[in-house]
């Protein structure tokens, strides 16, 4: 057991139920459902986290009623066919000694009629700010039916082997809509003060208790603070907690912050929001109740989790993204292997942020997330065997680490694509050498992490470097290889991860990083991040990408005192920041800085220090003088080496390309191409 994190590894009772440790994989959407039913994808996904050692899993929301169908891939738990899938999931999770609860929910007005063809139900006729559809104010008869449907699904959950249910009263729920003064304008006894507004909650819990067989755990997930004007604030939640505490109907309280459809950036906080930002909610709630309280929200580090427990801010730790990135987060943390944890970056690029885009849950660092059903892990890692107490599975054979490798792989480029490819090839017993021309590994990711509020991106590189340190891969930095030098090494495979370089737009002849006085300095964002260009004075950042490159560097320059204008051809600055839930917080931060936003403009020409721009919406032209022009534009591949190798007689089938050298894109593509490089080589030669 863990020496470093004793509290995290301590058992705890929820009602009659004993959990083996304090780590919870709390409820979150996955978009894994098939035809409204739990799928193999769910099964393997939850099973992997149970195998990874967490004490409690709470499933994604199970919908209780057919009037609720807010997104395509929702689990319709009122459909009795769901039972079979639930049974498989609970059986698999239990086999690792973990417990599992079903979260049950009705989304109320936070939905659409597009799938159900039936109008939305809500406490009052107030449209949700995201879905924007007017709902029907439910009659008391309909309330009664909804309460019944919760009870029915709870009994189904119990029959399916769940150890308990959690009632969502938080992110996107009709129960929260009743609790919140913003959405509940009723004048009957389901409205008014907190007693009236919480009447639905208590009726549901009571009816579940009346219908299930005791003992059975019932928990509630409460929104501590909606972060909205006139919305639920912590004092309202504390009043509710006192009511819950004295009712003796529930066994634990889970917490959250924000509303899924209005203040999502607070729920799934990105790396720009400091860890612990919402701990005031569980810690204050814990003062009001003897029930166990779960904290969650950007808890990604076992030390941080331990501290929360030690300081008495919560009794359990919900760690979702941490376990999305690394299913073995719990086992590694509890068995003193925490340095091996593949830490979550809180980048939100492939996981929770894109749930609204109807895409399955993934992870920027872990291409296996959501794909667990495709391949069972081949090798049981050491920490899993050490965590044998969790795993009744027979220990699997572990290959000898020193098996003699025959095949040589040379990887050119030590960015994320090259490093992932190195791990893949090394796992397949290639002798791998990575050559990086810069003085450190990580490529553009390490540079991007230098920008304000982007530092955690660098953990991607740290995680990869740590994994590589225990492999047979040799990495040489400050090394630039010619095609001849590569062929002389006689590699069996050459993997080019040479990345990309800045591309000059037609209106510039060259980058001018050291402009003579009175002339325009010009640079790419990468030049600014690596420090080879140091813009001062009036700076125009022209952002064609709409992602973090332009906004981060603008913020960095404005922080340094530059007078920054960010221009973009898009309809607003940072149009892709919404996906990672950074749009709001970036705007908030730069509103305090000398920074002006100029959407829907393109640069037409540059003459001296004059930059000509066109508003492509109205056709208006303008010209302004700047000291610097910084570009966040699409880059160009660096694939010269590929042709040079061909000229040296290396057969094309022995060369693989990964990452930006294929086409300059984002981290996720680099990682995934590195991850499957061997398969791609095999496929290509077939």
């Amino acid at each position, binding site marked *: 057991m863990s020496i470093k994190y004793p509290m995290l590894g301590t058992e705890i009772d929820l009602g009659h139920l004993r959990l083996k440790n304090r780590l919870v994989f709390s409820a979150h959407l996955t978009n894994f459902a098939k035809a409204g039913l739990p799928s193999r994808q769910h099964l393997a996904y939850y099973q992997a986290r149970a195998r990874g050692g967490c004490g409690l899993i709470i499933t994604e929301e199970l919908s209780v009623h057919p009037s609720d169908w807010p997104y*395509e891939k929702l689990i319709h738990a009122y459909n009795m066919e769901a039972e079979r899938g639930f049974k498989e999931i609970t059986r698999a999770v239990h086999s690792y000694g973990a417990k599992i609860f079903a979260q049950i929910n009705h989304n109320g007005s936070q939905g659409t009629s597009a799938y159900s*063809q*039936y109008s939305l139900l809500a406490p009052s006729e107030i449209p949700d700010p995201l879905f924007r559809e*007017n709902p029907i104010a439910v009659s008391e008869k309909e309330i009664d039916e909804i309460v019944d449907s919760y009870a029915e699904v709870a009994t189904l959950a119990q029959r399916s082997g769940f150890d308990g249910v959690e009632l969502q009263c938080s992110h996107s729920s009709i129960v929260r809509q009743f609790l919140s003064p913003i959405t509940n304008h009723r004048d009957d006894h389901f409205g008014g003060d907190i007693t009236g507004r919480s009447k639905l909650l208590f009726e549901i819990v009571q009816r579940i208790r009346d219908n299930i067989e005791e003992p059975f755990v019932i928990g509630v997930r409460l929104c501590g603070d909606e972060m909205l004007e006139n919305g639920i604030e912590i004092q309202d939640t504390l009043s509710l907690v006192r009511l819950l505490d004295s009712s003796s109907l529930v066994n634990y309280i889970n917490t959250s912050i924000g509303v899924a459809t209005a203040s999502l950036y607070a729920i799934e906080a990105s790396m720009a929001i400091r860890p612990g930002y919402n701990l005031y909610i569980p810690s204050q709630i814990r003062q009001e109740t003897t029930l166990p309280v779960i904290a969650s929200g950007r808890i990604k580090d076992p030390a941080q989790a331990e501290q929360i427990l030690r300081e008495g801010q919560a009794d359990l730790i919900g760690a979702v993204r941490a376990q999305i990135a690394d299913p073995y987060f719990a086992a590694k943390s509890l068995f003193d292997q925490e340095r091996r944890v593949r830490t979550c970056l809180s980048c939100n690029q492939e996981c929770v942020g894109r749930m609204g885009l109807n895409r399955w849950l993934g992870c920027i660092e872990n291409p296996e997330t959501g794909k667990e059903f495709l391949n069972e892990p081949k090798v049981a890692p050491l920490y899993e065997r050490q965590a044998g107490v969790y795993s009744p599975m027979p220990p699997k054979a572990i290959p000898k680490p020193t098996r003699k490798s025959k095949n040589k792989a040379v990887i050119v480029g030590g960015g994320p694509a090259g490093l992932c490819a190195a791990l893949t090839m090394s796992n397949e017993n290639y002798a791998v050498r990575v050559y990086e021309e810069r003085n450190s590994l990580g490529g553009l990711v390490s540079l991007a992490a230098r920008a304000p509020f982007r530092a955690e991106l660098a953990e991607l590189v740290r995680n990869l470097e740590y994994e590589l340190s225990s492999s047979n891969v040799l990495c040489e930095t400050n090394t630039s290889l010619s095609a001849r030098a590569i062929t002389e090494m006689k590699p069996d495979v050459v993997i080019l991860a040479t990345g990309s370089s800045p591309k000059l737009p037609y209106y510039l002849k060259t980058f001018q990083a050291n402009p003579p006085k009175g002339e325009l300095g010009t640079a790419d964002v990468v030049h600014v991040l690596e420090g080879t260009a140091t813009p001062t004075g009036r700076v125009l950042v022209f952002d064609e990408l709409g992602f973090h490159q332009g906004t981060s560097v603008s913020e960095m320059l404005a922080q340094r005192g530059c007078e920054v204008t960010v221009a973009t051809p898009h309809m607003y600055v940072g149009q892709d920041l919404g996906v990672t839930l950074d749009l709001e917080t970036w705007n908030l931060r730069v509103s305090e800085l000398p920074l002006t936003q100029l959407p829907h403009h393109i640069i037409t020409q540059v003459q001296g220090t004059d930059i000509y721009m066109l508003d492509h*919406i109205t056709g208006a032209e303008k010209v302004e003088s700047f000291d610097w022009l910084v570009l966040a534009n*699409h880059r160009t591949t660096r694939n010269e080496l590929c042709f040079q190798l061909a000229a040296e007689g290396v057969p094309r089938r022995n060369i693989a390309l990964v990452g930006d050298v294929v086409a300059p894109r984002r981290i996720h*593509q680099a990682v995934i191409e590195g991850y499957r490089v061997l398969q791609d080589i095999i496929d290509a030669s077939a």
Partner: protein
Amino acid sequence: MPKRTYKLLSAVTLGELTAKNRVVLGPHRTNLAHGRRLTDDLFDYYKSYIDRNVGVLVTESASVEDHDWPYEYAPLAESFAKGWSRLTKYAKESGCLVVASLSHSGNEGSSVYSQRVMVGASEVPDVESNELPQTLSESQIESIVSHFCTASTYAFDAGVEAVEINASYRSLLRQFLSPINNLRDDRFGTDRALFLKLVLEGIKKISPKATVGVRLSLDELTPWGGIDEELGLAYIEQIEPYTDYVVVTRGGMFTRHLYRANFRYGHPTRRELLREVKKRVHDRIRVVAQGSFFDIADAEEVVTAGESDLVEMTRALIADEELVSQLTQEPTNTQPIRPCLGCNQRCNPIDSQNIRVDCLINPKHISVDTLSYLEPRLYPNLVGVPISKVVHIVGAGIAGMECAMLLGRRGYKVHLYDKRSILGGLIALYGDHAIGPRYRLLLQFYEHNLRATQNITIHLNKEIKANEDLHELKSNDLVVFANGADPAPITEPIPAKRFLTSEQIYEDVSSYEGKVVVVIDPRGNVESTTSTEKIALHAAKTYLVTPDPLYASRTAPTGDMIDANRRARLAGVELRTFSTISLSESPEELVIKRLFSRVKERIRADYVHKIGARQAKHNDDFDHLCIATIGDARVARSIFEAISDARKLDLYLTERHR
């Protein structure tokens, strides 16, 4: 009345095949091809057209290889093959010609589903995904050519006799044709049509007798570059030897919204262009006109004038499946066609939510199955109560008119009441102003239907407040409330007298003429743009305040988002995005607060209008046994739900009386 003969209904050859008439259902995204194959739902959808006499049915574009996966339910040729076989077998009887559309989206697709890099002619990012493609090598191009050939083999083996190659909307082949996307200096750059020619040549080699068509963009409508008409026509001449028909389309990467354009763009298919195409190609080559052919008259005109041989009327068919079958009816049996509005609100499901293809004025996915479950919820007052075949419909908006028309056809004695002097409710209000001319056709459609049905009585200028106001009401007569919504109570901290209602905006312009009006827009939809533009026409100054980062954010599928922004700015509307309203200390002032910042702006404002602020009518105190409520009176929504509600009621009553 003599039966009219239409050239549109005459047969026409396509290569060695014959189409029984000249109306084409074009390939379009349905989001029904789950698993990338023909599902029962998609079969039923196509069946509804095969059964109704459509001449040529082009199936949804199928990717020729699995790395191309442009949207989740995009057909894949290999997986779709069985589906083609099923469709051709079924269509044989009615003589509908099934054509398989084959495509590769290149960098106009998505890398999300395949988790593979998108490919393209050159390193040019797509404007929508903003993602760079991998530049295809010559050997990769050759492999895609062979994928096209293999895909056509799947189609031919399945019994399909004609394939259509997509070189237009979201197509790698068009990207190669376009000087915007294709910056290559190899032979695929010096001869931009080479890729397409290799594909067509390859397919002709496999099956020389098969009909091969090309969907070609003849004009990308990007004056600064791209394919223009001259280049497009030159391409037609180049591909002529390998093809049997050409679908003449327009639009490119920057102008996708003009491929099936919104009504605001009028009639983008230029007849001069069609004539020019006809001139350039051999008589053997058939020309298919495509674009905004919403009306039979338009289509008949181009065919009669010899400007095209066939006409694609996809959206017109989506709006009314009976479009062709009505023409073949005896004149006494014909009913007017439900006119496509060209609104693109529901038939262009291009986002990632996978909403099935639908139609704003012809909801397609209402089934009795869902009704049996939902019955007691929708019609709590009707459960177990006997209902006579006399119905009183209060309110002659879209919901009321649709309901009257359907029940009238079923033989009900219908009384339709409205307090106003005209039919049409809220839409009549909008249609008279800014929404666009085609809305009037919808009103005419209803009016014609209602007046032509003997058992429908229309009572205008008749406000219904109590039972006595209804014509000879019996206790088991059904009363349907379709009397729309009321202005919503005001939740913003602003005095009520300063609020403008929708009715005031359209009917009482003088009330705000020359004043300063602030539009609060929490919707960003078509209603937002319509009302804002109407206000801006008369007000001295208009502010638009939205919490969104851009104005009209929800109008993207209609193809109007960018243009709506342009119109608003040119009309002098002051756009305040990412903003909200609060009250200031002074009664004349409002404060516009920028969200996520401390920036505040004080403005003097006379009136405030809030988009979408309507609330269901409460007819609860109306003393009658059999009551149903539909449309906005149930809860304020769009035309789509108004018509859906009416159709649900019709289905329900039919079940009840069975």
